[in-house]
């Protein structure tokens, strides 16, 4: 019991009061404006489909993999997309190893709703052989460091890794044309996923004082705030999902105002993701060019 006490981080009364009172004068403890995002950086791994996102001090890694499976009976022509979250106790001592906690499930669900139910990924193109074989795309999200607003960071990581993911090409062969041949990447260039749009999650925090709204709450603000709202929308402003945990009630006009703000932010983040992905793709192409430096020497 006592050991558990010692391991968890706790907020002091002083901090709680200070965060609330300074927000009243439009100040945040990390020096940001109330509607300012933290610094976002997107890095890619060596493998296709791995990305690491750093949002302020929050770090999230995402890894996409694919395998051939039998499709669901009711959707014989569609591939599947599933999201798994891993909350390591290294990221935050309050995360317990083993079974996923409430926050892990909620995070996975929000991203899942934003990506899958808005049909951002074209699942029909993942079908290889109707009712026999489809690609199952799996996104693994690892939280590396929790400094607040995991949802946004994890969502950006998932989008970045999906945008750089390449699956092996496969074709049908054999006598009856039912034999599936998977071509290794050396033989045929792997294919990217077909992504229709990028649904970006933007989180707002609400406090007991109804006039206070902050964008991208930090760990400390998360501990103080009484409610939050995550809006998932794409650069065109189409709302894909809204999640509003916490008991705090929010006025309709505040929600509409937040949606407008989120639209601007989403467009901003989308360009950042696209830029980073493009840069990565160019880099990868350059690496692929084989240079024979000693070809012409003799």
């Amino acid at each position, binding site marked *: 019991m*006592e*050991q558990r*006490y*010692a391991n968890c981080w*706790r*907020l*002091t*009364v*002083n*901090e*709680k*009061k*200070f965060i609330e*009172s*300074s927000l009243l*004068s439009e*100040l*945040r*403890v*990390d*020096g940001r404006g109330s509607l300012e995002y933290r610094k976002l950086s997107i890095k890619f791994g060596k493998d296709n489909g791995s990305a690491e996102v750093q949002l302020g001090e929050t770090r999230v890694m995402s890894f996409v993999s694919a395998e051939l499976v039998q499709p669901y009976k009711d959707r014989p022509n569609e591939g599947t997309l599933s999201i798994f979250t891993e909350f390591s106790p290294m990221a935050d001592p309050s995360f317990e190893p083993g079974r996923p906690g409430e926050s892990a499930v909620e995070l996975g669900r929000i991203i899942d709703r934003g990506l899958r139910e808005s049909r951002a990924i074209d699942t029909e193109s993942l079908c290889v052989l109707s009712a026999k074989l489809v690609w199952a795309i799996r996104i693994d999200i690892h939280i590396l460091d929790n400094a607040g607003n995991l949802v946004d960071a994890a969502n950006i990581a998932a989008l970045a890794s999906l945008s750089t993911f390449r699956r092996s090409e496969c074709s049908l062969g054999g006598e009856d044309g039912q034999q599936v041949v998977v071509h290794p990447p050396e033989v045929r260039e792997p294919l990217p996923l077909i992504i229709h749009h990028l649904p970006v999650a933007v989180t707002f925090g609400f406090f007991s004082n109804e006039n206070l709204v902050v964008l991208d709450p930090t760990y400390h603000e998360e501990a103080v705030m009484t409610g939050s709202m995550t809006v998932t929308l794409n650069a065109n402003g189409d709302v894909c999902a809204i999640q509003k945990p916490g008991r705090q009630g929010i006025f309709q006009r505040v929600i509409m105002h937040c949606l407008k703000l989120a639209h601007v932010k989403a467009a901003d983040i989308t360009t950042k993701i696209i830029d980073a992905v493009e840069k990565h793709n160019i880099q990868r192409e350059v690496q692929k060019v084989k240079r024979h430096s000693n070809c012409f020497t003799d």
Partner: protein
Amino acid sequence: MESKSAGSSTNFVDQLVYPGDVVLDLSTMTNQTIKLGGGLRQDGDVISVMKAGRLRFSKPNKYWVESSQKRYVPHAEDSVLGIIVDSRSDNFLVDIKGPTLAFLPVLAFEGGTRRNIPKFEVGALIYVRVVKAIPGMNPELSCTDASGKAGEFGALKEGYMFECSTGLSRMLLSTPTCPVLDTLGKKLSFEIAVGLNGRVWVNASSPSTTIIVANALINSEVLSGVQQKIMAEKLLQRVQ
């Protein structure tokens, strides 16, 4: 460098050392008494290092390894910032970022008797002194200095507390005053309490000053003395 390590029998002083390094050979220093601090141990005839950090030496014969870490290992006579977790009939349970919770006896206050036990709500921030730190036991705290006076110990009201590494708090407490505090202190007025356990409390009359000071201190962790001064001066210019 030469003058600093004068009197010590090793040339590792103020250098980075790593676990396994042998810093002292006792067979060459007979008839000498040395005192070992944290991070060092005796292996037969040699003194070897147990944790990564800088080897420090204090005249005439004290050696220890200083490192910066997120976890605090309680040590007697350290002043720390604690958070009240729970109150029992004879002890307050206090979180001091150590491996276990620390006990603050309800009588360990100036003029403390059974009749005037102070009241702390859960989550209150207090500035306390570690009295006993024995491995395997919960550390014991006190809200008085060694002579039984309250001094500056006790509850900290208002203000903002942030957590940092133990190295940063040691830097803030060092003499002469570290450049960032020195520069900020010339222009801004604020109160500060630094706990050796990697917690710093800042209070000023306006929240904006508190935020500026807190962020300047957090940012100064990786900066050298001159850089700290430049950073603090730039910050002050932006404010005025």
